């Protein structure tokens, strides 16, 4: 792993700025960087950090995977079939802009307070963008590929598995990376309202139970780091050799 100097220097500079800005004010509520680090240590000591991280990841994984399993096949079918596209598109465009958080009251009504509600919200947040990505990916397949596939005598199933799927995978993976990020955003918000564990809950609880802003910011930092790791993980998928073709195409 190449250690890049510039980002590290920038982060160090920002940390110093943060430290300076906080300590200038004699009455400081916001924690200094060092207090945040101590806060993280605190959480680790009590075994809470691991427990909360696992809880959040668990919910994201479930919501995300369910969304992928439903949105991808459905999106491929709708994108492929012109009539289906015309039928579904208005409904999708109507539902898409509704923030998953607006579904919170309904989610709690249907699933009660707990994991299911959170997973449902994450599922919603991931489902619509993925569905639209899949639909667009299919509609964007150059006709030559389909025609070539038919020319060589491929059956419909073979056409789907040997032409359609490979042609849409790069776009799908990008869509999945972005959607995973959305899922991670939603989980934090969902946890602030609907559950009693997880990083989102940590932030709300830390504030409510004694204005522990060091833990609030510690939670934020952990959330940011995990989000970064998830993103990096997905990006490494995009760099597989057989998937790199959609970037070098002119």
């Amino acid at each position, binding site marked *: 792993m190449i250690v890049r100097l510039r980002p590290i220097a920038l982060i160090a500079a920002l940390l110093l700025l943060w430290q300076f800005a906080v300590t200038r004010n004699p009455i400081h509520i916001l924690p200094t960087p060092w207090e945040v680090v101590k806060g993280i240590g605190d959480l680790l000591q009590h075994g809470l950090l691991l427990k909360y991280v696992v809880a959040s990841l668990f919910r994201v994984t479930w919501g995300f995977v369910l969304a992928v399993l439903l949105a991808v096949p459905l999106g491929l079918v709708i994108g492929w079939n012109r009539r289906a596209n015309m039928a579904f598109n208005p409904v999708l465009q109507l539902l898409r802009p509704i923030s998953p958080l607006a579904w919170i009251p309904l989610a709690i009504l249907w699933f009660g307070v707990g994991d299911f509600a959170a997973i449902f919200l994450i599922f919603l947040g991931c489902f619509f963008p993925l569905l639209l990505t899949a639909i667009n990916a299919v509609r964007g397949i150059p006709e*030559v590929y389909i025609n070539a596939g038919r020319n060589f005598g491929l059956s419909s199933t073979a056409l789907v598995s040997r032409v359609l799927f490979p042609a849409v995978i790069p776009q799908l993976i990008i869509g999945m990376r972005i959607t995973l990020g959305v899922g991670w955003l939603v989980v934090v918000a969902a946890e602030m309202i609907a559950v009693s564990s997880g990083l989102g809950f940590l932030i709300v609880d830390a504030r409510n139970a004694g204005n522990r802003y060091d833990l609030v910011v510690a939670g934020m930092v952990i959330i940011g780091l995990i989000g970064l790791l998830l993103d990096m993980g997905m990006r490494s998928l995009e760099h597989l050799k057989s998937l*790199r*073709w*959609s970037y070098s*195409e002119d």
Partner: protein
Amino acid sequence: MVFTRDGKSTPVLDDISLEVADGEFVCLLGPSGCGKSTLLSTMAGFLSPTSGEIKIDAEVVHGPDPRRIFVFQERGVFPWLTVEGNIDFGLFHLPAAERRQRVAHYVKMVGLEGFEKAYPPALSGGMKQRLEVARALAVNPDMLFLDEPFGALDSITRLVMRGELLRIWEAERKTIIFVTHDIDEAVQLADRVVVMSARPATIQQIVNIDIPHPRDISSPRYLELRDGIFQQIGLAHKI
């Protein structure tokens, strides 16, 4: 053949009647947009004629068929497969040993040795076209349809590719129908040149190119035939 879009119908082809013999190299020549690609697509079965029919070996054409492979204008190779993977694409009904043998044979024939594991984005335009031809030939079709396959290449590569195509054709003797807007290309390659008018396209003239291969592009007979076509299309001889 009539296209309908947005409620407007455009006649694209009008009264086309053509017979092609087995093993012949026929060029469809005409200006851009005249409908020759449409005619080729119809012959290959990707489009259905609005009136009339296409018959190959006395069988009416209903759709694309692996016995008649189409080589597209550009970017027809699958970018997610290697060179080998592409050539192997149509060979799914053959046993593994024969597939490997055929792939190796056609890699060699089109001159792509050393690039078997390469992916199309790493290949030049000329190499991608060779790959597409190899992929087409690997399934041993009866006919090849080529739609301006060298159009996106630079003129030097185009000359080289024409020679390559003729070399392959002499070795395998498929029936080839080749669409081009380049008069020289048509006269250099074809046994017969079908000169088409602008849209709606009709067949203006069919010219028999009776020069044996390899053709000397400075020979009087070549120039005579080429100039004849120039005149037929109504182009000025001096620029």
